[in-house]
């Protein structure tokens, strides 16, 4: 009750303070008039009565002030007054304002931009209800619980029916299908799902329905759900699409529903276009009846209140039961579950936190710089401040006023920073690794703006407090005597030196971290991938399987296509392969055995990356032949099966032997047990990532292991676009209904494979650059201010015979001292900090002497240059002028 009355009073007096003042005035007037009235009644004259009343009442203005103070809101009025004063001050020194606001904007902008990514990836909830109940499920070998693999359709069914911990469980896999009929034939990203996935993710259709459990039964009619984007782009938003039939891989599917664009499919596919039952997929449909084929990624939703540990325990029991029941396929396997969020965010988390830390250092430096600027301002305002204290302002009141000015600066800097962050996010977007964008879109919304505001105010306090305290002298008399010039100079100077040292130290850390990443990136991009991507164009061709259903048709098509491509002018060489190095769809890795070697222990296997290639492939890619021969036209289905292996495979698995002439058993399932004779050894290729050392690899001739499509690679000196057009024409001259997708030059594709490295490097590199600039400005500010303060002293020195050189040395020496202190601290900090980024580095040690050396030299150079300008100015001091100074 009382508290409400108090609050009410305070708000009232805040909002209506002029009204309250008027009331107070009136109340006092009444009292005085009453006093005068009494006095007159006692027979005094008008003037005497007035004097008497004033005496009786006391000092009116002081009393009024005391009354006002009881309202306890004066600080807010003071604050607005301070702000007004602050704005006037900032307007008066536009240079100072611009530099501070810009510095802060850089710091806050960079932080806000990075935070917007952190917000999108780590903080924002996944776009599903109760996302923390979602888990992914994998088969893992008992002996290697980190080797995750998909689950067979039969095991999925068993788990779904037998478990008691999941409220729902669904499987999915992906397959690109060819959509024909409406416009150009094109590849559509298709998810092969079990129908439960829609209720699991709470997907609500825009129109029609999603898949029902009946649609997932074998033999059900073929139906499809399409995305809103496909519906708008391809079918012109035709509302009658539902119920119509579309052709996927030349087979009719009835459209039953449209999913809204806001629905984000997991593993995402932001461009997911079509959903069908896995039973209806031309490739995977038949495989669902093979219990040895692990094709489904499985997702489950935990029942409310079921912990992860409990679910894992249940899956352990289920896994053991399956292994017992189906020893042929499931012996030696266990089931493992992982929280969905962990899987999505994965290793992005540590990288992002490192970036956030780095960008935090940038902000610290920006604060240090502004603190420095404020400090010099406050010092020169010493006389004004001393005067105000003398007139009765309390120290706290002055500190409050200076802090209000910092808050104003912080706010301006924050606003500019948010603008900067908007631009930065735009610029950064193309550099973002695809998995970042996949999770959720990056935008500067409420939480990010709140973060920026909080950051600005925290920064304002950080850079404003120290100068404010230093500027308000404890010894008033002395500072007025000294004319304010030296007010707080001593404390100020120490503080400024400290700030400069801290800035250089932070810059050292950031530059070394950035330098290490840049060096590592340079090494990655210059690494020899084992093939020559220059002048190579790739394009994906895939054959609809309902129409091209037999391997014979696949081979016939590829022979025909290659023959037409060979005939084209300007095409040096062309070949077909699946998969290519750094393939968008990932690499194929299969088990192999060497004929004649003792049988491997159960549960152990040897694997190598697999590719099926046409004879010209090695020539197109310029992969060197080390021994034996390449494939030739002779390696046809009617002749003995052959293989080519990579140098690493030969070295690792045929130590001290000649592999050529030996036999290995491997192949694309289901032909995984076919013996093939090794006819050649080729150089190693980095196929998974440029930063990954090449593993063992094995190749088979396309004619002996055909697929329903593959990647065409063409070496040509023609422009990539004309090569692309020629490939399209050649494909369409064979079959008008075939899509050609993902046409790009090979170097472009490689660039995409190192997107993440490039992102980190660009960011940390630019933080380093900003840090360097801030440090330069910081040390310049400190040294030039110190030099100008010492003008008097320098004048005396020169008057008694000091040379210009001595003055130069004096000033430079001071700067160098700061720089060396800063560098020393920075290097020590960097030795600790770079350990955090060890996992991001490729063949560069965290203490790489080259990087450390370069950074030290660059920073020293910048520091000396920054000191040289004020030093020269000091050197030119005219002793006579200097002595008259002050």
């Amino acid at each position, binding site marked *: 009750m009382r508290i409400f009355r108090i609050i009410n*009073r*305070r708000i009232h*007096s805040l909002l209506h303070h002029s009204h309250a003042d008027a009331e107070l005035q009136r109340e006092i007037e*009444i009292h005085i008039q*009453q006093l005068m009235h009494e006095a007159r009644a006692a027979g005094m004259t008008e003037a005497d009565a007035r004097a008497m009343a004033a005496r009786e*009442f*006391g000092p009116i203005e002081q009393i009024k002030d*005391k*009354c006002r103070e009881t309202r306890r809101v004066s600080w807010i009025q003071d604050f607005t007054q301070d702000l007004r004063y602050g704005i006037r001050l900032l307007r008066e020194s536009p240079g100072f304002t611009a530099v501070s606001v810009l510095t802060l904007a850089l710091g806050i902008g960079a932080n806000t931009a990075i935070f917007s990514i952190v917000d999108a990836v780590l903080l924002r909830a996944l776009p599903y209800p109760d996302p923390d109940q979602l888990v992914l499920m994998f088969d893992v070998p008992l002996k290697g619980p980190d080797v995750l693999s998909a689950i067979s359709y039969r095991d999925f069914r068993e788990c779904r029916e037998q478990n008691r911990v999941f409220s729902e469980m669904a499987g999915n896999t992906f397959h690109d299908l060819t959509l024909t009929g409406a416009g150009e034939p094109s590849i559509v990203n298709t998810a092969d799902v079990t129908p439960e996935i829609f209720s699991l993710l709470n997907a609500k259709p825009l129109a029609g329905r999603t898949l029902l459990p009946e649609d997932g039964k074998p033999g059900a009619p073929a139906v499809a759900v399409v995305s809103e984007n496909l519906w708008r782009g391809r079918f012109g938003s035709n509302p009658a699409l539902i119920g119509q039939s579309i052709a996927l891989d030349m087979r009719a599917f009835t459209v039953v529903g449209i999913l809204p664009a806001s629905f984000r499919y997991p593993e995402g596919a932001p461009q997911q276009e079509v959903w069908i039952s896995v039973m209806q997929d031309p490739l995977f449909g038949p495989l669902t009846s093979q219990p040895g084929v692990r094709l489904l990624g499985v997702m489950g939703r935990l029942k409310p209140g079921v912990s992860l540990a409990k679910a894992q325990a249940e899956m352990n029991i289920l896994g053991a039961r399956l292994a017992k029941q189906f020893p042929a396929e499931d012996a030696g396997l266990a089931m493992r579950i992982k929280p969905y969020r962990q899987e999505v965010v994965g290793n992005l988390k540590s990288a992002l936190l490192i970036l956030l830390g780095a960008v935090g250092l940038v902000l610290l430096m920006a604060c240090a710089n502004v603190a420095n600027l404020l400090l010099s301002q406050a010092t020169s305002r010493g006389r004004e401040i001393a005067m105000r204290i003398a007139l009765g302002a309390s120290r706290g009141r002055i500190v409050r006023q200076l802090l209000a000015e910092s808050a104003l600066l912080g706010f301006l800097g924050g606003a500019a920073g948010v603008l900067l962050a908007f631009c930065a996010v735009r610029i950064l977007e193309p550099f973002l690794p695809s998995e970042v964008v996949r999770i959720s879109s990056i935008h500067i919304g409420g939480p990010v703006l709140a973060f920026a505001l909080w950051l600005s105010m925290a920064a304002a306090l950080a850079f404003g407090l120290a100068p404010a305290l230093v500027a308000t002298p404890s010894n008033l008399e002395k500072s007025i005597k000294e004319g304010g010039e030296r007010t707080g100079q001593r404390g100020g100077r120490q503080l400024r030196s400290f700030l400069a040292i801290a800035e250089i130290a932070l810059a050292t850390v950031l530059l070394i971290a950035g330098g290490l990443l840049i060096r590592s990136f340079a090494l990655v991009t210059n690494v020899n991938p084992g093939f020559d991507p220059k002048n190579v164009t790739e394009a994906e061709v895939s054959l609809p399987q309902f129409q091209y259903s037999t391997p014979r048709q696949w081979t016939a098509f590829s022979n025909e296509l290659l023959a037409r491509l060979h005939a084209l002018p300007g095409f040096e060489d062309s070949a077909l392969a699946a998969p290519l190095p750094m393939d968008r769809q990932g690499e194929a890795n299969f088990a192999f055995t060497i004929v004649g070697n003792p049988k491997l222990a159960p549960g152990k296997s040897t694997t190598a990356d697999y590719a099926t290639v046409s004879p010209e492939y090695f020539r197109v890619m310029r992969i060197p032949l080390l021994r034996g021969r390449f494939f030739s036209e002779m390696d046809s289905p009617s002749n003995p099966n052959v293989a080519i292996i990579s140098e690493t495979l030969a070295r690792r698995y045929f130590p001290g032997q000649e592999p050529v002439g030996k036999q290995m058993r491997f192949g694309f399932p289901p032909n995984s047990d076919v013996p093939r004779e090794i006819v050649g050894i080729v150089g190693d290729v980095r196929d998974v990532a440029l930063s990954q050392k090449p593993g063992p690899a094995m190749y088979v001739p396309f004619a002996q292991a055909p697929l329903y499509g593959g990647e065409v690679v063409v070496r040509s000196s023609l422009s990539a676009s004309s090569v692309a057009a020629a490939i399209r024409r050649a494909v369409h001259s064979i079959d008008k209904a075939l899509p050609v997708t993902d046409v790009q030059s090979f170097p472009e594709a490689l660039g995409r494979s190192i997107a993440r490295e490039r992102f980190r490097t660009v960011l940390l590199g630019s933080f380093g650059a900003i840090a360097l600039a801030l440090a330069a400005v910081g040390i310049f500010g400190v040294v030039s201010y110190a030099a100008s303060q010492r003008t008097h002293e320098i004048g005396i020195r020169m008057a008694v015979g000091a040379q210009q050189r001595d003055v130069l040395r004096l000033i430079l020496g001071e700067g160098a001292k700061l720089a060396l202190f800063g560098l020393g601290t920075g290097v020590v900090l960097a030795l600790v900090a770079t350990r955090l980024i060890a996992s991001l580095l490729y063949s560069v040690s965290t203490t790489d002497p080259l990087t450390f050396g370069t950074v030290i030299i660059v920073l020293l150079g910048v520091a000396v240059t920054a000191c040289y300008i004020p030093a020269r100015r000091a050197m030119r001091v005219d002793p006579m002028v200097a002595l008259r100074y002050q």
Partner: protein
Amino acid sequence: MILKTIARKPMHGWGIAKRIQTLSGDTLAVGQGSLYPALHRLENQGWISAEWEESDLGRPAKVYALTREGRKQLERELKSWNRLSSAVHLLIQNA
């Protein structure tokens, strides 16, 4: 003191000053103006409330009245004052 003065009936500033003067027999007559900061503080702390009302002065004046919380506060203050004064009394008597 002020609380006690207006506990009987709501009063305006002039009346309070007069009353304190008469009750204390002019011994406590401080500058009458210093009454106002005290009144405002009490008002801002919620012990008393104020209204502009027609008054015996022939024009509207700000009239102060005790609130419920103020009455409680008064009791507390009186108790502690009584304790203190009786302690002082004892001390003076027995010293």
